[in-house]
């Protein structure tokens, strides 16, 4: 894998708790979760910029459009 860079991130207590909760659920380090988030954001952002829409489907197969900035 390519060389990695290190950075400091400032998060609120609530944001840090959310990050730690995801780390716990997914059994990943904070770095790995941030990488996943970045990959997802980049992909979704590009698709939406290209005219695509993002929907979330619930268990009843009902779809709700997600607004992503």
């Amino acid at each position, binding site marked *: 894998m390519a060389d990695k860079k290190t950075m400091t991130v400032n998060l609120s207590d609530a944001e840090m708790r959310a990050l730690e909760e995801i780390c716990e659920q997914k059994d990943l380090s904070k770095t790995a979760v941030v990488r996943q988030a970045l990959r*997802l954001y980049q992909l979704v952002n590009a698709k939406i910029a290209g005219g695509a829409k993002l929907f979330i489907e619930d268990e009843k197969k009902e779809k709700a459009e997600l607004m992503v900035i």
Partner: protein
Amino acid sequence: MNRAQLWERKTDRVVSAELLPSMTPEQVVQTGENWQRFRVQARARLRRERAPVPEHDHWDWDEKSHDLKFTAYRCLGIRYEDEIQGLMMISTLAVEGRLLVHKGKPVLYVKYIESAPWNLKAYVGAEARFGGIGISLIRAAIAVSVEEEFRGRIALHSLPQSEPFYGRFMEDLGIDPDVERLRYFEVSEERALKFMRGGDV
């Protein structure tokens, strides 16, 4: 992890090939073009002989290479004697594990995996040059999964022609109605660990 062991069928010897961990879009496009030239001739012969063409014959690596502009995707390759002998496109944006023991855990997804056409009996019969490409690429996918903290968990949907191959070392979770009715396979952490220790498939 930057080497892959291939079996040269003609000489019946194992050769050490180079594993490319992250190919550029240009390298992938070039490989696709080289393979396509070979395929055109092989396909013509298959038609004359009224033999079936492989199910993935239409795969277009030029088109697939467009995904490489996203950090979610990587293409790995195996190079031997200046030729790419196999390609694999993976998504490091995790999917959720479907095996009961993996529920909710991140899994690396193998989008496409292909051997060069001159290595496939379906194209060239007994003239096929190298074996062991699929298994070397799967081993590399497991290594990336470990690197990404997914503990070796990987998954893929298989074309019908490849189901017996993946069924040898992956858990078969049946036909997926949401993905072209292809069969879904997943490698368990335990199996992945054996793989990484160099165990048999």
